C-alpha cells in the first residue's frame, strides 16, 4: 500500500444509522426529556406507592417531628439536633486547621533529605502507614477510652469532644500528609533547579517556591478530605458526646420517630453540598486553564 491519502473517487457515506438518530439534535432533546421523566416517575412511584410508604413517610419525614427534634426539649432531655450540629461544626473547623498544619509538617519531614531528620523521616513513614490503615472508629475508641484510662493527669481528663478531635486529627493528618507529598512531588524539577541556581537555601526554596506551587493542584483532594471530615465528626458520639446524629438517635429512642435523623442528614448536606459544588468548580476551572495553555 502506498503512502498518501485515499485516491478512490467515490464519496463515503456520512449519515448516521437510523436508530442512532434519536440522540442527535432536536430529537436528542426529546430523548433526554423522556429519560428524565421516566427516572423521576419510577422514584416517585416507589416512594409513594410502596406498601410501607405511609409508615416510612410518617416515621422519617414527619414535619412536626422534624421541627421538634431540631429545637429539642431540654426538660424531657430531648436534646436539640440543631444545637448538636454546632458541635459537629466547631470540631470540623478546629480539627481541619490542626490537620492542615500537621499534615504539612509530616509531608515536609518525609520529603526532606537532611541526615539530621532521618529518625523523624522513618517515624513519619511508619505513622502514615499505620494511621491510613486503622479504621477511624477504632482510633476514636483507643484514644477516647484509652487516654483517660492511662491516668495521666491533664491528658486523661479532657472532654470527649477533645478526644474525638485528637482521634480525627491523628487519622486525617496521615492522609493529608500524603496529599501534600504528592503535591510537592508534582512541582516541576525545573523550578527547583532555577531556585537552586539563584543560591536560595533549601528551606527558602521549600517555603517560597515549592509549597506555593504544591498546594494549588491538591486543593480538590484537600477539599474532599474536609468534606469527609465534616461527616466523620459524628463519630465523637461513641465517646458519649452529644452531636447532631446522636441527638437524633436519642429523640428516636424516646419518641419512636426517626424524623430527627433526616433533620441531622439535611444539616450535614447543607454544609457538604455547597463545598462539593465549589470543589467541582475549582476542578473545572483548573482543567480549562490547563487545556487552554496547551493550545
Amino acid at each position, binding site marked *: 500500500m502506498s503512502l498518501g491519502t485515499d485516491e478512490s473517487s467515490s464519496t463515503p457515506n456520512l449519515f448516521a444509522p437510523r436508530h442512532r438518530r434519536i440522540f442527535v439534535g432536536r430529537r436528542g432533546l426529546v430523548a433526554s426529556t423522556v429519560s428524565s421523566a421516566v427516572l423521576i416517575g419510577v422514584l416517585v412511584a416507589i416512594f409513594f406507592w410502596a406498601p410501607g410508604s405511609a409508615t416510612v413517610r410518617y416515621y422519617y419525614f414527619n414535619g412536626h417531628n422534624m421541627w421538634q427534634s431540631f429545637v429539642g426539649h431540654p426538660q424531657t432531655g430531648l436534646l436539640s439536633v440543631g444545637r448538636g450540629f454546632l458541635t459537629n461544626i466547631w470540631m470540623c473547623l478546629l480539627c481541619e486547621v490542626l490537620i492542615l498544619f500537621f499534615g504539612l509538617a509530616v509531608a515536609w519531614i518525609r520529603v526532606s533529605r537532611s541526615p539530621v531528620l532521618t529518625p523523624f523521616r522513618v517515624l513519619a513513614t511508619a505513622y502514615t502507614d499505620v494511621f491510613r490503615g486503622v479504621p477511624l472508629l477504632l482510633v476514636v475508641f483507643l484514644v477516647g477510652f484509652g487516654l483517660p484510662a492511662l491516668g495521666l493527669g491533664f491528658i486523661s481528663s479532657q472532654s470527649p469532644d477533645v478526644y474525638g478531635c485528637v482521634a480525627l486529627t491523628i487519622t486525617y493528618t496521615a492522609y493529608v500528609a500524603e496529599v501534600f507529598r504528592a503535591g510537592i512531588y508534582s512541582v516541576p524539577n525545573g523550578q527547583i533547579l532555577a531556585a537552586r541556581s539563584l543560591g536560595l537555601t533549601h528551606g527558602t526554596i521549600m517555603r517560597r517556591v515549592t509549597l506555593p506551587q504544591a498546594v494549588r493542584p491538591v486543593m480538590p483532594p484537600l477539599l474532599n478530605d474536609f468534606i469527609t471530615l465534616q461527616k466523620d465528626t459524628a463519630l465523637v458520639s461513641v465517646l458519649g458526646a452529644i452531636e447532631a446524629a*446522636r441527638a437524633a438517635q436519642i429523640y428516636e429512642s424516646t419518641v419512636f420517630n426517626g424524623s430527627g435523623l433526616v433533620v441531622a442528614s439535611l444539616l450535614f448536606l447543607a454544609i457538604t453540598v455547597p463545598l462539593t459544588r465549589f470543589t467541582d468548580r475549582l476542578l473545572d476551572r483548573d482543567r480549562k486553564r490547563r487545556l487552554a495553555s496547551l493550545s
Partner: protein
Amino acid sequence: MRTFRLILAGLLSTTSLVAITLTSSVRAGASPSAAIAKCQTTIAAEEYTKGKLTVGTDDPVYTPWFVNNKPTNGKGFESALTYAIASVLGINKSNVVWTYEPFDNSYTPGPKKFDFDINEISYTAQRAKAVTFSESYYAVTQSIVTLKNSLVVKKHTPAELKTYLYGDQIGTTGLAYIYDHIHPTQQTRVYSTLDQAILALQTGQINAIVVDTPDGQYMASSEVEKNKKPDGDQIGQFPSTGEHYGLLFTKGNPLVGCINVAITALRDNGTLAALTKKWLDIYTSVPVIKP
C-alpha cells in the same frame, strides 16, 4: 434405713405438691386452670414458629437475670421465669428456642422475630405505642452506681446529685430517670452500650451511672473494676416510680393473652415470689435515697 427415709421424703413432697396445686386451683376458682388448659391447645397457632416457643433476649446477658450468658441453662431470674411460663403452658423445655435481639431494637415498631422478648425491658407509655407488653413480672427501681472512692459516696443530697456528671446507655429508663428526676446541670454523656458507660466510669470520665437496681448491684460488685478488683459502689436506690418489667411482644400479638394467664398462675401459686426471692433477694437491701 436411708432408702426408707428417701422414699418417705419423696412421698411427702409429692403429697404436699399435689395438695398445694389442688388448693390453689380450688382457691382461685375453676377458671384459671380452665384458661390454662385452653391456652395449651390454642397456643400452637399463635407461635412465631409453630410448636416452638421462640424467646428473644440480648447477647451478652448478665447475672442475676441469666447466668454465664447461657439462657438455656434455666438459671437466673429471667431464664427460670421463661421456663416456668413454658411449663405452665405445657411446652416442653426442649421446645423453648432462644434468639438474639439487641436491647435497642426490641421496643422499636415493626414485626418481631420472636414470640416474646425478655430482657429487663421496662414498660413505658411511649414504648407501648410501638409494641405490646405483658403484665408486670417484676417491679423495678433505679439505683445509682459510682466508684468506691468517689465523692458521690458521701455527698448525695438532691442538690449535690444535680452537680455530678452522669453517663448512661441510650434509650434506657435509667437515662430517662436522669433527665426526668435528677436534672443535672452538666450535659449527660450518652453511650451506645452500657459497657462503654462502665468503661467511662472506670476511667474517671463520668461520676455516676443510673441503672436498674439489680443490674446496679451486679455492676458494682463485679463489673466495675480497678486493677482487676471490684471498685464499684451502689450507693442507693431511688424511690419507685411505678416502673416495672414486662415481656415484650409484636404490637397486637394475641399470644400475650395466654402468657398473661401463665404469669398470673405463677404469681398465684407463689412461683413468681419464690423465683424473685431466689435470684433477686440480695438486691432489696440497698438503701433508698432521694433524687
